[in-house]
């Protein structure tokens, strides 16, 4: 068997750079990678050797690119798309769909809209999108909203989970499109992230929140047995009473259940 060594070329021979500012730095221990003279990695380097994958194995651009970037965030793809669309239109035209398909995205009007919107967003926001692993659908509300940069800056500083972030984006966009000024939508100085998240939810669904709040206050007035905790809680489209009860003996349990039964009657009268 004959093993052919991979041939390297000096980096100066790569006159074009597909520098889309990937978040991960290409390891210094590896030569930079190029395809037909277009530098795909190691954009910060000014000297050293480059492995040109096309010269070595005649692979396609997508094969070369995806082998060095097996996973990318949506914002990284948005930056890549921006460069392809402006400087490498032939590559974008020929390989765009298969490139996005490699990353699990179907190229269509809706994705194109989101990618274009994200490609022009602040870099800080873009990095946050990739840190949180947000997808095109998570960002969909923002593409139909007027610019909300100040609010987004405020949002990305908060310690919220991904699901909270997605919900907050949707509520924030809806409220802004319903006429609420951005200043009203930002977190207050003394407000915790959790409280802020809950406030957005209450602002978006004020009538339901009001009813739930009134019910929560009402049940506090009811004569609960000792060692019983009752809460009015919402689960999706239904709200209801959640009761935690501690009994220390069968007699105690019986007594408490009787008391709960009488509370049931109180509840029936109220509704």
């Amino acid at each position, binding site marked *: 068997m004959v093993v052919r060594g991979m041939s390297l070329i000096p980096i100066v021979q790569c006159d074009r750079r597909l520098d889309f500012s990937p978040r991960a730095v290409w390891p210094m221990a590896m030569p930079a990678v190029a395809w037909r003279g277009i530098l795909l990695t190691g954009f910060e380097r000014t000297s050293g050797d480059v492995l040109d994958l096309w010269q070595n194995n005649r692979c396609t651009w997508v094969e070369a690119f995806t082998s060095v970037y097996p996973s990318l965030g949506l914002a990284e793809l948005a930056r890549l798309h921006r460069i392809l669309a402006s400087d490498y239109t032939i590559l974008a035209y020929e390989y765009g769909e298969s490139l996005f398909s490699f990353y699990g995205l179907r190229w269509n009007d809706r994705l194109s809209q989101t990618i274009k919107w994200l490609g022009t967003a602040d870099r800080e926001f873009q990095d946050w999108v990739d840190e949180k692993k947000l997808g095109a659908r998570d960002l969909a509300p923002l593409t139909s909203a007027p610019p909300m940069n100040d609010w987004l800056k405020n949002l990305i500083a908060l310690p919220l989970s991904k699901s909270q972030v997605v919900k907050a984006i949707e509520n924030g966009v*809806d409220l802004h499109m319903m006429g609420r000024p951005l200043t009203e939508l930002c977190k207050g100085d003394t407000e915790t992230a959790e409280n802020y998240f809950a406030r957005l939810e209450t602002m978006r669904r004020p009538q339901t929140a009001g009813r739930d709040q009134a019910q929560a206050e009402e049940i506090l007035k009811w004569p609960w047995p000792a060692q019983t905790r009752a809460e009015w809680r919402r689960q999706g489209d239904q709200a209801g009473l959640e009761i935690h009860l501690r009994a220390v003996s069968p007699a105690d349990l019986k007594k408490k259940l009787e008391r709960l039964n009488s509370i049931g009657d109180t509840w029936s009268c109220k509704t």
Partner: protein
Amino acid sequence: MQDLIAKFDRVFIHADSVDSLVAQRVFSLFPREQIEVVTERPFAKSEGELSAQEFSRSKRMLYLCKYPGQFFKRCPGSRPGLACCNYFVLNWGLQCDMNCSYCYLQSFINTPVLTVYSNLDDALLELEDIGKTMRDHALRVGTGETVDSLSLDEITLYSRRLISFFRDYPKWSLEFKTKSAKVDQFLESPHAGNVIVSWSLNAQPIITSEEHGTASLEERLAAARRASDRGFKLAFHIDPMIWHPEWRENYSELVRQITSRFTPKEVSYMSVGALRFQPEQRHMMRERFGLNSHVTRAETFAGADGKLRYDAEVRQEMFKHILDTFTSADPAWRIFMCMETPETWLKTAGASPFKDDALKDLFDPSVLHAASRVETKPVQSFFT
């Protein structure tokens, strides 16, 4: 008719459908320069999730082609956990020329054209086949699920062929469901008294703000009167009820309009339902209708089936209002709740539909079971 024709920018006819009756009619109605014969679906590159612009454009592009699959499907409501009627669906098209803000087609249409299937004969053959085992069952077949049954009927004239077919199956019933007032094209058709023309009705302020391009309440009720006078049965669906600050007054007025013009005997049944939609649909609605709509502003929550709905208590209040208003006009009105859980039935009507004598025949599980034996393909995923 000219209004309907003007709704379309282009008409595409697949080469395999050029000789169909519906294509011949299209050739006779549309200017020739507007029609293009094609060998593949137009905008072939647009598939998967449509953007808001693509969805809106699809309403202006009429496409005639053959449907290669099975026409006959069972109603999406008939699955565990939801009380539903014995309703079977015959989809002869996909997409609608009208434009309701809440339309559920926004959540699953992935073709960039308004499609009308040219091979209605194949659908009728399927029905004939089903008839071999189910001729004597009280089967209900509706055509208004993925397309409005009648809004395009002046072009297709499918109503006439279906009415004629159902003359041979007097125990079956055919249900058209529409938000249009287009009935005159079939009123002269002889029928077996088993055709129900049903209207999706709403309070006029909701029609104005949310049901764009549809007939007014007055037009719909006038059309219903014309159909009834010709012996066609009527059904009304107050669906979706949409919460808005004046909902009580406006829905009371709707009930008044209905009860002052029709007797309970003239209306085979009434259904009510409240706003509901798939979660992914909200992005499309926001983009297409903004937030100046009672639908996009609605306070909705995920239900057990994943769809977004009003709070259960709000739904019960709305349903109860409708039920009470109808029964105070006349207790003989028959009303059922569509796409609702048994819990809502119990809390609103005080009984499960399976236990209500007046509604039992609409919810007879034996018909569902008999029909499921003739089904060969599961209901498509967008129904679940």
